């Protein structure tokens, strides 16, 4: 796996987000001149107190929320008002939600096939082959014909990860993927995420799992009130944080 990571050009930047501003009616300033860059193959963990804008950041990166100002470029595609660019970015960026958001009226197979057929215009047998492969990868090969409400939370989230991977994205966004899970199911989901990271997937992960963050991430960002408090390489971030606010936050959650 070390090899795998090194074989990718580590210096190539895949996500460039600059001077992002996002306000919600209220008005609430969710992102306040926030900038971030993510390199290809990098695992970036975003932490921060609730309401600090972490989720909003992820939702802006794939255009689920429109930014008020700033620029986002992913894999050289600018996220602008052109619908075709938005769709192109969403093809390259997979997203996993806190509440899974599987489609309850579709089986596991159909959930994962859907976007392959509609977005990548694959034939059904071709899509099904990919789906089987992905389900085997998340350890749910035998659940292919189940419906979401027949699965446990952990299984649903693993299906959701497989669904997000079905378009062969270059970047994966995880929005508190384990926060809605019972404690005994968190491990199985983190395991899948760990495997992805080892395979060299570029990941932006919002999480409260500090153990996972320390073990898997390359870099950590602390957000508060829509602003960047501190960022640093994982080891340095946890062992020698520069900001007093970071030390305080880490004391609270560790």
């Amino acid at each position: 796996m070390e090899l795998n990571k090194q074989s990718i050009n580590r210096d190539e930047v895949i996500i460039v987000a600059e001077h992002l501003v996002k306000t919600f009616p209220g008005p609430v300033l969710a992102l306040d001149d926030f900038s971030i860059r993510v390199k290809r193959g990098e695992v970036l963990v975003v932490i921060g107190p609730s309401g600090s804008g972490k989720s909003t950041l992820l939702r802006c990166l794939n255009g689920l929320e429109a930014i008020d100002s700033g620029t986002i470029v992913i894999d050289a595609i600018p996220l602008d008002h052109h619908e075709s660019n938005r769709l192109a970015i969403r093809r390259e960026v997979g997203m996993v939600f806190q509440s899974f958001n599987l489609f309850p009226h579709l089986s596991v197979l159909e959930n994962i096939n859907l976007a392959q057929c509609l977005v990548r215009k694959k034939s059904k047998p071709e899509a099904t082959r990919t789906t089987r492969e992905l389900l085997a990868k998340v350890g749910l090969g035998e659940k292919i014909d189940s419906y979401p409400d027949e699965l446990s939370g952990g299984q649903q989230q693993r299906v959701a990860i497989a669904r997000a991977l079905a378009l062969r994205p270059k970047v994966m966004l995880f929005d508190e993927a384990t926060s809605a899970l019972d404690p005994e199911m968190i491990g199985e989901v983190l395991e899948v995420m760990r495997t992805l990271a080892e395979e060299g997937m570029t990941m932006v992960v919002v999480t409260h799992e500090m153990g996972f963050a320390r073990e898997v991430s390359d870099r950590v960002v602390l957000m508060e009130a829509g602003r960047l408090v501190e960022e640093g390489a994982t080891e340095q971030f946890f062992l020698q944080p520069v900001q007093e606010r970071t030390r305080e936050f880490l004391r609270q959650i560790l």
Partner: protein
Amino acid sequence: MLSRHRSFHWLDAVLLALLFGAAGFVAYRITVHLNYTWNWSVLPQFLFRYDRETDRWVANYLIQGLLTTVRLTLWGSVLALILGLCMALARTSRSLYWRLVARTYIELMRNLPPLVIVFLFYFFLADQLMPLLHLDTLATRVSPFWKQWLPLVLAPPEQLSAFCSALLTLAVFESAYVAEILRAGIESIGRPQRDAATALGLTHSQSLRHIILPQAVRRVLPPLAGQGISLIKDSAIVSVISIQELTYQGTQLMASTYLTIEVWLTIAALYFLLTFPCSLAVDRLDRRLNRKR
């Protein structure tokens, strides 16, 4: 859910006795004090009559009226569903223009008495639109195949124009209610489902067609079916524009036989025969959908 008491209380007995007493009193007033000669014996011939030429039993006024009601309801439902779906989509559209168009249409239709709409539309449609479509001449020139089937599927050629305007009228005002039911369904599918579809790169129309609508329609199937039953009853309105459906046939029959109560009781029974099985079916559908969830 509350458990249902099946035990029989003494108060229930008192209530039942009161009910029977009231019913008995009404029956007594009708038989003794109402100056009315009952004559049920002539009614069956208005349901079916024996045709000597073809040597067969054929449907007479009332059953013909009933069949027209069924045709009106079936085609009306289909049209109302299509129109209602378009309006519901416009109502939930992201474009302000389409939302305004749909809102205006729905509010107008829901806030006018159906009878007024029927008159307005009938005189406009029958006078202006139908001649434009040349339905009358079209109906006289149909092939023998259609000559045979047209009365069964829609209406006899000479009534086609009137039938179609009645159909459109019913569909137009019923579609406003269908639209509101569908809108409620669409809006009940929450943000997370839309987000998931969007994040997967689906376009707006793809997510509508594959994610939102299938779930929304499943959710509102019972009220939608209920609206269909309403249409059976509401179709009586077009009797005022001389469409020969059940209620119209009833008024005609009453005028020629003076058997007021017999005729209307028969009409009521025929409507009930049509609507009650539908209601039971909707009930079962409702329970099955609830169990699944």
